[in-house]
């Protein structure tokens, strides 16, 4: 029963990793940029939600929607302003740019009035509630916060699946991520699609931020959780959407188990140990395409 308990709470955190990893994967597939600021996007999402709920006094659902819209616009703006001018530059230039953006974001956020350096609590309606599965007191106790994360992630992934499968824009995004040049010849406005992908990815991170906020609180260094999404993305195979989900769950559960069964300190590095093993054993990840570059 304890094992099951650990797996459920691990899976909930894993879903957060999965959502951030999903953001990486979308951007990486479309633009071949590794976005090191993904976690910081999540942090900004958390702060926007917080402001909407506490300062503006909006109800949770409205704040949720507002965060998604604001984050999408923010992501699109970032792409347009600082990343598009670098189109065609080596991958390292892009990586350095996103590292700079993350560094900047952590600094700027602390200077915004009310956001600051303090730790805030997001007043969600389901705070500190638990549900007993299989009988009160004897069965599995699941906190509603964890349950909401899992349910929301599943719903979001299903929505994304439908979006990529059935809508024109989703199919255009798939085409762009497979071959930019061919997509361009087919009349797809590749640059605009890239911008929309940044918007989509940021919006997903915003959702992740709101879901994570009740567990870890909202603060300027919240974005460092995003660094654990890299292992998730690599384990799943960088560039695979189902891979990001599975990778996130694996990392989350391993971390949760390591925190309980292994000595102190292992919890924080479990994700990195897993990713190193993965890189040595199977660098392409579980779901990655096994492609080699031709000269």
């Amino acid at each position: 029963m304890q094992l099951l308990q650990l797996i459920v709470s691990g899976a909930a955190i894993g879903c957060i990793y999965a959502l951030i990893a999903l953001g990486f994967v979308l951007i990486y597939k479309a633009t071949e940029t590794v976005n090191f600021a993904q976690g910081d996007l999540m942090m900004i999402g958390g702060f926007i939600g917080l402001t909407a709920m506490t300062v503006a006094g909006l109800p949770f659902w409205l704040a949720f929607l507002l965060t998604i819209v604001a984050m999408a616009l923010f992501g699109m703006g970032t792409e347009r302003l600082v990343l598009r001018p670098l189109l065609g530059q080596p991958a390292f230039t892009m990586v350095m740019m996103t590292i700079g953006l993350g560094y900047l974001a952590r600094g700027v956020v602390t200077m915004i009035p009310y956001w600051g350096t303090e730790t805030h609590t997001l007043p969600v309606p389901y705070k500190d509630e638990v549900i007993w599965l299989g009988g009160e007191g004897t069965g599995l106790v699941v906190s509603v916060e964890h349950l909401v994360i899992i349910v929301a992630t599943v719903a979001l992934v299903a929505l994304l699946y439908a979006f990529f499968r059935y809508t024109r824009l989703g199919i255009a995004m798939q085409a762009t991520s497979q071959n930019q040049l061919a997509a361009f010849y087919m009349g797809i406005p590749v640059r605009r699609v890239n911008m929309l992908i940044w918007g989509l990815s940021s919006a997903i991170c915003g959702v992740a931020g709101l879901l994570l906020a009740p567990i870890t609180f909202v603060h300027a260094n919240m974005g460092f959780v995003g660094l654990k999404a890299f292992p998730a993305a690599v384990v799943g195979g960088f560039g695979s959407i189902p891979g990001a989900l599975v990778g996130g769950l694996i990392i989350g559960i391993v971390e949760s188990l390591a925190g309980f069964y292994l000595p102190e300190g292992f919890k924080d590095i479990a994700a990195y140990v897993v990713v190193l093993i993965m890189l040595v054993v199977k660098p392409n990840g579980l779901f990655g395409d096994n492609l080699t570059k031709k000269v």
Partner: protein
Amino acid sequence: MHFIFKTRYEQDINLFRHGGQIFWYAALALALLCAPWLLSEYTLSQITFIGIYAIVCLGLMLLAGFTGQVSLGHAGFLAMGAYTEAYLQANGWPFMISLPMSALVAGITGIMIGLPALRVKGMYLSIATLAFGFILEQVVVSAEHITGGNAGRQVEKLIIAGVDFDDGTNFYYLVTVIAVICVLGVLNLLRSPTGRAFVAIRDSEVSAQSMGINLAHYKTVAFALSAALAGIAGALYAHKIRIITPDQFGFLQSIELLMMVVIGGLGSIQGAIFGPAFWFVVQQLIVTGKDWLPPELGQQTGLQPTIFGIILIAIVLFEPMGLYGRWLKFRTFLEIFPFYRKGMFKRQKSYMKSERLK
């Protein structure tokens, strides 16, 4: 602009290309020599920090700027050097032996971290080094009997052959001499077959391999040397700070080292020195400027990351060669005045080098 008419092969090998360079570098050496008499103790201590960071940046430049392997865990090597030095010194080893040992321990760690580099590249390598950086930090926290854990470890006074190097001036000279030796070493390395192989690997792994360069060997060597330089700097850092804690060597430190290198100018030795020098000067300016700013802005802790973030973004957007590139342009402007044209340093339009299979 100097057009050097080469008449002997030795001219290709000379460290200085013309008399002007000898003059200016001699002037710099003289200035460094006289600095303790001219500058205040505080400024001297800041210059010592610049020297220490220049040694790390030199290593990172060798790896990222000349071999093309980006490391996001470089602070880990710094930690290895610092803790090795602290531990050996406490056990009575003389500095002359413990410093090379710090470099050796860091270098061996570098080889271990370089091993995944033989299998993975690009972004995967960055993630592997990032993972190693976090694991090393945790190892330092856990190995309490050696490192003192999160509480930190005190480093004893540095005394070499009866001379007290805890004194600002002496330590300044020590760091400067070591930094100059490191710069000359790297400079010579880059003119040797090994250095040429590094640059070839950076420019194209496939063509380097087809020229007969053993990728595995040279990448490992690059990691080892880079880490060893970081180890030397770490040992000096330990003596400078006197109290070392694991959080000084975290992910943020790695990122800041990388930022210094990029700001200085990727792919140039000068950049490895410009980067930390610029970093400390700006840091000092922020500290001094704080008092003139309105308190709502000046007292913010986020001011410094914001400014450095903006500088980095501006450099990446407008000056990919960093401060060194800007200096090259300015120098050319002066040298050929008034014939400087805007497009003289224009980059060739590069097309996306896709890692994908097309």
